[in-house]
């Protein structure tokens, strides 16, 4: 329950903060959440989201709390990169964002595995064991998955931002 509430509070705080910096924030958040949800739905067979409250699940073990969490990570990473390096090219910012996301994912996955919220089917565990684990816990193979997952979801978000002309690269008070 604490985990679910913490994610909800963090999401609200992030949205309030980002909305004060860029008026398109909640729309971009929604688009990104759709991308995350699409990916979660498609890859649901590859992992378990377990031990969450019943109300935290959308369908089977797909949890909207996890969707919020990954969306928070993506938007916060975009904000950090856009704020720190606004003049970098799109390609640099794209890969920097994935780098920042990965930095967030490492401790988050560590916590999820430790708290037994994240689990994997045996076939995936066998696959993960084919490569070493970082810090003895987070499978290196999962980092490759994170790169693939986030590349596709981040591009999904950028594509729809462009389609609806939702600028999300300038923030009040950021570096000019």
């Amino acid at each position: 329950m604490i985990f679910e509430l913490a994610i909800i509070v963090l999401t609200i705080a992030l949205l309030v903060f980002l909305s004060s910096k860029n008026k398109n924030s909640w729309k971009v958040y929604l688009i990104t959440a759709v991308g995350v949800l699409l990916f979660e739905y498609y890859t649901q067979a590859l992992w378990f989201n377990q031990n969450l409250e019943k109300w935290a699940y959308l369908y089977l073990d797909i949890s909207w709390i996890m969707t919020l969490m990954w969306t928070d990570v993506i938007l916060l990473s975009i904000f950090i990169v856009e704020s720190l390096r606004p003049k970098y090219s799109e390609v640099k910012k794209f890969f920097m964002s994935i780098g920042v996301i990965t930095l967030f994912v490492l401790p988050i996955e560590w916590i999820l595995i430790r708290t037994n919220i994240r689990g994997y089917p045996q076939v995936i565990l066998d696959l993960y064991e084919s490569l070493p684990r970082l810090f003895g816990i987070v499978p290196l193979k999962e980092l490759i998955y994170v790169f693939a997952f986030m590349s596709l979801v981040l591009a999904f978000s950028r594509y729809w931002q462009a389609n609806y002309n939702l600028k999300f690269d300038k923030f009040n008070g950021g570096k000019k």
Partner: protein
Amino acid sequence: MNILLFEALVVIVTIGILAYMKYSGQKNVMKRFGLMLVAVFLFQIMSEPMWVNNNLDSWAYLYGNVSWVLTFGWVSIFFLTFLIVDGVFKKMQEKNKFWLYLLVATIITVPAESLILKLGIRSYADVLSQTFSGLMIPLTQVPIEVLFAVPMISALIIPFYKYISSKYL
């Protein structure tokens, strides 16, 4: 149809589509091809444990379960989709064409998936087949879930390709 014939057919169709794109005046065709390969490959990295690609010749595999011939097949499906939708709906806005891309890609994929199932190339891992309802698309051996999965795959691969190509090609 034997497996070698299938593999050769996929490669020939891919070359044919790329040649048509070049002939019809599209720029950076090989870069576009490379970009779409990356997009499909990213998805295959993620979804590799969910299916098994059997019975292809050994040279048709990149690593483990991932086949470059089937990757070419996916690339062909997406490029053919773009050719059809962009050709027929030239003036439609991109955000509207997106939904047609998903529809056309699904229509092309269902018989292609049916063919590779019949040839014994495609089978599904237990981790995935356990989630199937058991219903099939009429007149095929293709699980009904493919009708949901293909638009989802396409909804992530197409934006990746479109976004990156709009910025760098």
